[in-house]
């Protein structure tokens, strides 16, 4: 059976989270020549129909991006015991479900360090998408990284909204970025799905530095993209597709150790990352892997040790 991939509300071409998943699937297609079914969510209420439709049509495995599928998957999965499901960013405890979660705090810590080192004003920004613990986790890791480099640095933080619409509101992203720039921020980390398009556009328009998320977004505004916190959603999708119906279920936690998260360095931002910066960040990465630096995970206790 063909595998299937369902994208969340931000849309397949958000150049970020969903697009990473898409790229993973396309990589699988390129390698195997196989085909897969895909669907973009348009509304909250569609999720169940989408899952059932694919399950009914015999797709296997069915991969979905985003925590918001958690609840419906929990009810749908038992109805199709022979179908394997993969959910990214959420833990669903069902025998036929693989849950993939990432240690975003680790990657965010690294880009936070870079932000602090690149900032001239000592103020850096963070614009999140929907205000949920998951995004707080990004922010908290980022702030820890910033403070690790410059304890005096200020982190300006905004969330775009409280509903999934926050993933797809470039205008609001843009306005929030302008506000942060007014407060002195000269590096802004966008962790907001499609909203990030507006954030990074404004970053480029205003001539400061931005940090992308999930996908490598460095190419979008060369010269203005400090780096991207890559989260290898593409790999998760690719592996799920490759494993096929026989995939192993259960919880998969992906972090720096297995290169599930990291920061992006390529020709587009090579000029912005000095060798010293690279050295410092790579050293920190090693320490995290070795457990010498413990980056706090917001979601363990819904608190963040740094402001």
């Amino acid at each position, binding site marked *: 059976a063909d595998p299937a991939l369902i994208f969340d509300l931000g*849309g397949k*071409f958000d150049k970020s989270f969903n697009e990473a998943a898409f790229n993973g699937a396309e990589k699988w297609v390129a390698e195997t020549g196989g085909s897969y079914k895909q669907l973009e969510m348009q509304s909250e209420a569609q999720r169940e129909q989408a899952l059932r439709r694919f399950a009914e049509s015999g797709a296997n495995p069915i991969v979905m991006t985003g925590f918001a599928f958690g609840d419906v998957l929990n009810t749908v999965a038992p109805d199709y015991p022979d179908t394997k499901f993969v959910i990214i960013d959420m833990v669903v405890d069902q025998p036929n479900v693989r849950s993939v979660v990432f240690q975003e705090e680790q990657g965010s810590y690294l880009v936070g360090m870079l932000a602090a080192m690149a900032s001239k004003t000592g103020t850096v920004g963070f614009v999140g998408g929907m205000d949920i613990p998951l995004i707080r986790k990004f922010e908290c890791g980022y702030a820890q990284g910033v403070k690790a480099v410059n304890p005096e640095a200020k982190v300006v933080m*905004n969330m775009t909204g409280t509903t999934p619409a926050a993933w*797809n509101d470039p*205008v609001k992203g843009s306005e*929030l970025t*302008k*506000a942060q720039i007014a407060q002195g921020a000269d590096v802004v980390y966008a962790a907001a799905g499609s909203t990030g398009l*507006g954030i990074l556009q404004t970053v480029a328009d205003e001539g400061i530095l931005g940090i992308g998320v999930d996908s490598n977004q460095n190419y979008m505004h060369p010269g203005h993209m400090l780096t991207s916190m890559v989260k290898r959603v593409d790999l998760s999708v690719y592996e799920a597709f490759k494993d096929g119906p026989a995939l192993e279920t259960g919880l998969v936690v992906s972090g720096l150790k297995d290169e599930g998260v990291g920061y992006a360095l390529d020709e587009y931002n090579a000029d912005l990352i000095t060798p010293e910066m690279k050295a410092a960040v790579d050293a920190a990465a090693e320490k995290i892997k070795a457990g010498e630096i413990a980056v706090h995970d917001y979601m363990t206790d819904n608190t963040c040790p740094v402001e």
Partner: protein
Amino acid sequence: MDYATLIEVLGSTLRLGTPLLLACLAGLFSERAGIFDIGLEGKMLMAAMASGAVAATTGSAWIGLGAGIFASLLFAGVHGLASITFRGNQLISGVALNFVASGATVLIAQTLFGQGGRTPPLSGAARFSPIQLPGVETLAAVPGFGPFYAKVLSGHSILVYIALLCVPLTWWLLYRTRFGLRLRAVGENPESVDTAGVSVIRLRYTAVVLTGVLCGIAGAYMATSLQAGFGREMTAGRGYIALAALIFAKWRPWQALWATMLFGFLQAIALRPDVIEGTLHMKIPVPALDALPYILTVIVLAGFVGRAIPPRAGGQPYVKER
């Protein structure tokens, strides 16, 4: 809220208020001529898509603007046909065209670019970039006014200034020209215009065309100025807010400016719950802020804050012989 924050919010107000202002003035022409137009939203959406798509392919924001106006005019024409020529229900026509626009924009953008109903991001000449007003550098140092001039008034795209210019222009057209006199008359009492030997139909079509042009600019502003490209449903109800502002403004141009800027301010402040919390020392739920323009409009409609009397012949097709 400190002054710098206020400046920031006001700048944001102007950016967010501009599409409202253009759409509101668009509605003003139509409704002053006696044609209700619920379809401002749909026209803006069509224009946003068309301008985004054409700007992306041609690389010129100006050609994009033209395409946006054209697309909006197309919808305005259908609305005119339904409500003027075929004397249909103006409200239903507007509602219907909004749905058509919702569907058609995504359909077309998806077909052209295959990016989930989005147009590619625009950059360079495909976007209207901010322009600095003269003397920003020198004036910026002036305490108080300097930052206001530099951050609130200056540094917007040309379309913002066009929108602002449209206010006195509309006022002048409406109250100082023959066309304006007739336009106002046809919305109040089309028989008076007819018996004065002026064609009601032609006047109303002219108004509908003006509405199309202004909605076109509003939509193009969304896609080529406020944002860099079109995204599905990107107007997000702004056409309805503009309608609300129009009622709030009691169908007058200067009041339309204040009303749309008020609603723009509400939108700007809704983006900054942190500022509100810091200013009012209490947490106001964001949904409440989002709903505020609509709540205000209902209060105005209820006639508790001065009655809003729409043009008397509004909404009714002109029928001489039963």
